[in-house]
């Protein structure tokens, strides 16, 4: 087993992969800091799996470099392989082996010392909720169970860097939550890059997000910043009774509020109104808003936050990209 090294980062610079005349990925650059979780987000066919495979050393890049823990993935492949755990798009499983037997085998070829193998396998079975299936043959497992075995084999040797390609595919909602919690629990001590096209995954588990579309990086930032940038901030919707205009004036002067508009009260009882507020980026005026409405002796029937979801960001960024490319053509 490898002891934790100071540098467990992933550095990608100008990575491209060209098949004939078509480029699967072009000029991809990003960095994952030691202990960070980076989400690699993109629609199907964007180039996520290609990038993951190059990082893991399964595919050679056409140009550019990638370094894991300071080692070049192409020229120092063995050193890289000793430090990574990898879950490919399809979990690599031997159908005739038992879950336990398979994990023992993986632990062996990943260099886990004989004395520690059993305890590592036990621990990982526990963490992935596989303990009761340990004696089952892999071909008898459901898709969700196979996916969990796939995750287990990526972490059985406690690697400093973990590469996960679509880790929650095929899992039911409860299992998805378990896996996300598992990934979050690994952060800090491990550097993780996970690729997905499921947006909530990213906002819930990742420190930062790289959005990739059609083989190119669109942007890299924290989920919050991306959402704030797009919406120009967060907002609120209030359902109140009585004359909305008075409240509108009172809310407008609150610090952190940019705009208050009275929206149509379609669908609400006659004496209720709907107010829409837009806040400035970074502001948290929720407490003041509630205080103002209640202080004016009004009924506050619903108060909800509105903000651009990551879906909006994603669609905006990836369709914008599409327009630009289409205009060029």
């Amino acid at each position, binding site marked *: 087993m490898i002891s934790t090294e100071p540098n467990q980062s992933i550095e990608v610079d100008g990575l491209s992969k060209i*098949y004939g005349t078509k480029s699967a990925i072009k000029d991809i650059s990003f960095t994952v800091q030691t202990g960070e979780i980076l989400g690699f987000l993109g629609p199907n066919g964007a180039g996520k799996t290609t990038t993951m495979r190059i990082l893991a050393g399964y*595919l050679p890049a056409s140009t550019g470099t990638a370094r894991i823990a300071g080692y070049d993935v192409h020229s120092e492949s063995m050193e890289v*392989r000793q430090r990574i755990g*990898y879950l*490919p798009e399809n979990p690599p499983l031997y159908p005739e082996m038992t879950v336990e037997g398979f994990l023992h085998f993986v632990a062996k*070829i990943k260099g886990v010392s004989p004395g520690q193998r059993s305890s590592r396998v036990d621990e990982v079975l526990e963490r992935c909720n596989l303990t009761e299936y340990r004696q089952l043959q892999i071909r008898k497992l459901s898709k969700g169970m196979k996916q969990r075995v796939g995750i287990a084999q990526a972490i059985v040797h406690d690697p400093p860097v973990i590469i996960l390609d679509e880790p929650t595919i095929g899992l039911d909602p409860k299992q998805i939550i378990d896996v996300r919690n598992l990934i979050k629990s690994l952060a800090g001590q491990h550097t993780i890059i996970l690729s997905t096209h499921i947006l909530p995954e990213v906002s819930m588990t990742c420190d930062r997000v790289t959005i990739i579309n059609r083989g190119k990086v669109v942007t890299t930032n924290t989920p919050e910043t991306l959402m704030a940038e797009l919406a120009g901030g967060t907002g609120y919707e209030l359902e109140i009774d009585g004359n909305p205009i008075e409240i509108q004036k009172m809310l407008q002067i609150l610090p952190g509020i940019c705009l208050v508009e009275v929206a149509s009260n379609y669908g609400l009882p006659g004496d209720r109104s709907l107010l829409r507020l837009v806040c400035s980026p970074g502001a948290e005026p929720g407490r003041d808003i509630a205080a103002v409405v209640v202080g004016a002796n009004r009924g506050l029937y619903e108060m909800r936050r509105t903000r651009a979801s990551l879906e909006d960001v994603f669609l905006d960024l990836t369709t914008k990209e599409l327009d630009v490319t289409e205009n060029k053509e």
Partner: protein
Amino acid sequence: MIIFNNIIAIFRKELQGYFTSPFAYVVMGIFWLLSGFFFVAILMSPEGIINQIAQRDQLGVPTPPVDVAYEFLRFFLGVMGSLAMFVLPILSMGLYADERKWGTLELLATSPITNWAVAVGKLLGVMTFFSAMIVPLLGLEAIALGAADPSILVTVPLLGHLGLFLMAGAILSLGMFISSLTDKTIVAAILTFALIFSLSLMELVAKSIGGNLGAALEHLSLMKHYTNLVQGVFDTSSLVLFMSYIILGIFLTAQSIESLRFSRR
């Protein structure tokens, strides 16, 4: 040391795979059935060797004395060689094609284990399985030929089986290389059959060409060296040839997997 451990890990995985797979048992069963049939037929059937010699004796045909046991062994092992030619591609076809199919090649290629270690481990595994298939034949021979008079030297069947083992190793090694080129076991099997066929032809071609080229080609022929060993002729050049084929197969396999990583375009 690590390399050795890796080879053992792969070897054990392969062996476990054979003994938990129904397919392997089927192949083994059919092989034993056929070899048992040939054993009995060659030895004891009306056209078999015992009856043939007996008939010749009865007819009073003046022939040089025949060492029946030796002749039987030679003939039987010859047939075993041909039978092996059919079985071996079936054993080697899945070696890498299955790994591709299951996606586990991606696991091996991203683990700190060299392609060489994987190839050697796999070859050892399949050769061990093949040995398990032919060792019982030694038992059969011991029983049947133990009563022979003049008794047969124990080195003769041992040498013959060694030849079978080494020839199998050569074919399995080349078959393993072919398996590493595709993800479809059936394609691997067909290509390996084709390879064996061409190698068998080589001996015929060599004989018809004659001269130095013919002699060189003949020297490369697997069958020729196999028949030598079966006849009890131990020539180190046979050993060298078989080992060369085995090493060639391993080398080519490692290269073809490595080329996945090095084909920068």
